[in-house]
């Protein structure tokens, strides 16, 4: 199986990359530091783990650092091999270009997921050592959401990489992805909705619905919505169930559409 072979190769390569190891170590230390700093003192609160994750770690670390690691892991997936020439070695073997793009999404996504789990290991130890009721289930579940967020960003960055003929373009694309989804999504979409006011009015939806849709369209906020629902034990239930479904659907969309779009371009290029 071609995709599996490429995924395995890429996984091995990625987990050995120094940049990735450094980022994961940084992430792990920051989360651990947060965990230590905001550890509940005295009366052990039942929600300690959940509060730590959703309020502190989630908002400040996971939604900023995990996408960054995802972009770093993904942006040079195809363009890097293309520029160095190892892509020639890869495509000398019986792989299609689609195998290459999706094999890389799988391999690097898996590497990143592993990194996220590794990154949460140290904080878990801190929490276990701290005198609180450590909710292992919530912690582990949250780690899965964080990993999913990273995988989505890997997919977007790999798609961008496949469409880029040079490393420089792929890097610019990677930075743009990060800035758009992590830093400026709210501002940009807010302006768009504002500017497109008349159009929105003409649609059979309220502008609030449009705003909500745009909010969950961003993988970062989508994961945030889902993980907060999970920590509040309301995953796919309660008032926001529909919103959560849209969020989950958007995550699937962002995992598949960018690699496919990148492949369209990559498939027609002379290498």
């Amino acid at each position: 199986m071609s995709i599996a072979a490429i995924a395995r190769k890429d996984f091995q390569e990625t987990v050995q990359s120094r940049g990735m190891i450094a980022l994961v170590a940084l992430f792990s230390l920051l989360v651990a530091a947060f965990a230590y700093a905001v550890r509940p003192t005295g009366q052990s609160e039942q929600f300690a783990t959940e509060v730590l994750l959703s309020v502190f770690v989630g908002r400040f670390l996971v939604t900023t650092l995990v996408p960054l690691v995802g972009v770093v892991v993904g942006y040079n997936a195809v363009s890097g091999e293309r520029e160095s020439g190892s892509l020639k070695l890869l495509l000398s073997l019986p792989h299609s270009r689609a195998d290459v793009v999706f094999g890389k999404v799988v391999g690097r996504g898996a590497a990143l997921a592993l990194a996220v789990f590794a990154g949460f290991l140290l904080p878990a130890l801190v929490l276990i050592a701290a005198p609180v009721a450590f909710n292992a289930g919530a912690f582990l579940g949250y780690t899965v959401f964080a990993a999913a967020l990273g995988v989505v960003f890997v997919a977007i960055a790999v798609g961008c990489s496949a469409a880029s003929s040079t490393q420089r373009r792929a890097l610019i694309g990677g930075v743009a992805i990060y800035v758009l989804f992590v830093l400026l999504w709210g501002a940009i979409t807010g302006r768009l909705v504002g500017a497109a006011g008349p159009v929105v009015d003409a649609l059979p939806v309220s502008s609030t619905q449009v705003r909500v849709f745009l909010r969950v369209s961003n993988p970062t906020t989508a994961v945030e919505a889902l993980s907060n629902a999970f920590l509040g034990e309301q995953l796919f239930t309660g008032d926001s169930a529909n919103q959560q479904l849209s969020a989950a659907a958007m995550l699937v969309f962002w995992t598949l559409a960018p690699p496919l779009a990148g492949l369209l371009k990559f498939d027609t290029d002379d290498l």
Partner: protein
Amino acid sequence: MTAIELRGVTKEFGDVTAVRDLDLTVEDGEVYGFLGPNGAGKSTTIDMLLDLVRPTAGTVRVLGADVATDGVAIRRRTGVLPDGFSVYDRLSGRKHVEFAVESKDAADDPDALLARVGLADAADRDAGEYSKGMRQRLALAMALVDDPDLLILDEPSSGLDPAGAKEMREIVRAEAERGATVFFSSHILEQVDAVCDRVGILRDGELVAEDSVEGLREAVGGEETLEVAAAGADGDAVAAVRALAGVSGVTRDGDELVVNCDSDAKTDVIATLEEAGVSVADFHTREASLEDLFLAYTEGDAATRDADTAASTSTDVDPTGGDPTDVDPTDVDPTDAGPGDDDPAAEEVDR
């Protein structure tokens, strides 16, 4: 069956035409040397065989299938040593070969393949630490996985030392004996002489000659160049020499006469000069080397004549031209800029 078949293939990159209306056929089991100076379009042609580059016009078929639609199936039966590739720095040599084995769904032993290309001792080292020659060997090991029906080797000897280049040729020979078709490119004719059934010479994106090495040698003229130090030679003496049977051209170069002739005619040339009253101070001969031959096709104008001579190499068409002002292809200094310059280590001759 036909291993490789290109029909009317043209590839343009913007304004540049890299390959022009190329027809090329390589039969099953053949060892085909694909020659040409750097920039002639060899790598572009090979990239089209691998579907890395798509032709602007024409069809490319490999192992009976269209590369545009059946690329993966073709590459399952093909071993490729690409040009200008790089390795995965963080993966060991063995991991590379394991990856090729897995990709081809083969059952080869990676260590046996690494041993075959002389990398057994370096199998566990990261390929990023390999020298150029070791990387070349590693890619060859990957190409040999699963005993491919067709081997495509792009400049296989580049970066190899003489011993490495010789081993490369031995592997090519062994693969050919096994029954594989081998298609390889080179810009150095000496390398292909020893192993090729047939060579094609590409120049400016066009195939200017295609024959066995012997056939090409005959087409350019199985001749020698006689250099005679004869200061006193006048026009009559030169004319007398030129009139001799077996002499195809005479050029005056200062005090020296440069005579292109069959080797049998050498003594006649000297005798004729002396009869004409010219004192011959010194003379020596040199055989047209393969390098000269190659340059004749790729830089001189033998190529344009080849259209006549290739069809029947036994005809007496004069390949070097009778006109003394004609550029003599066998006279080109092989140390001139061009194919010979690149990598001294890769020029080792296996005789």
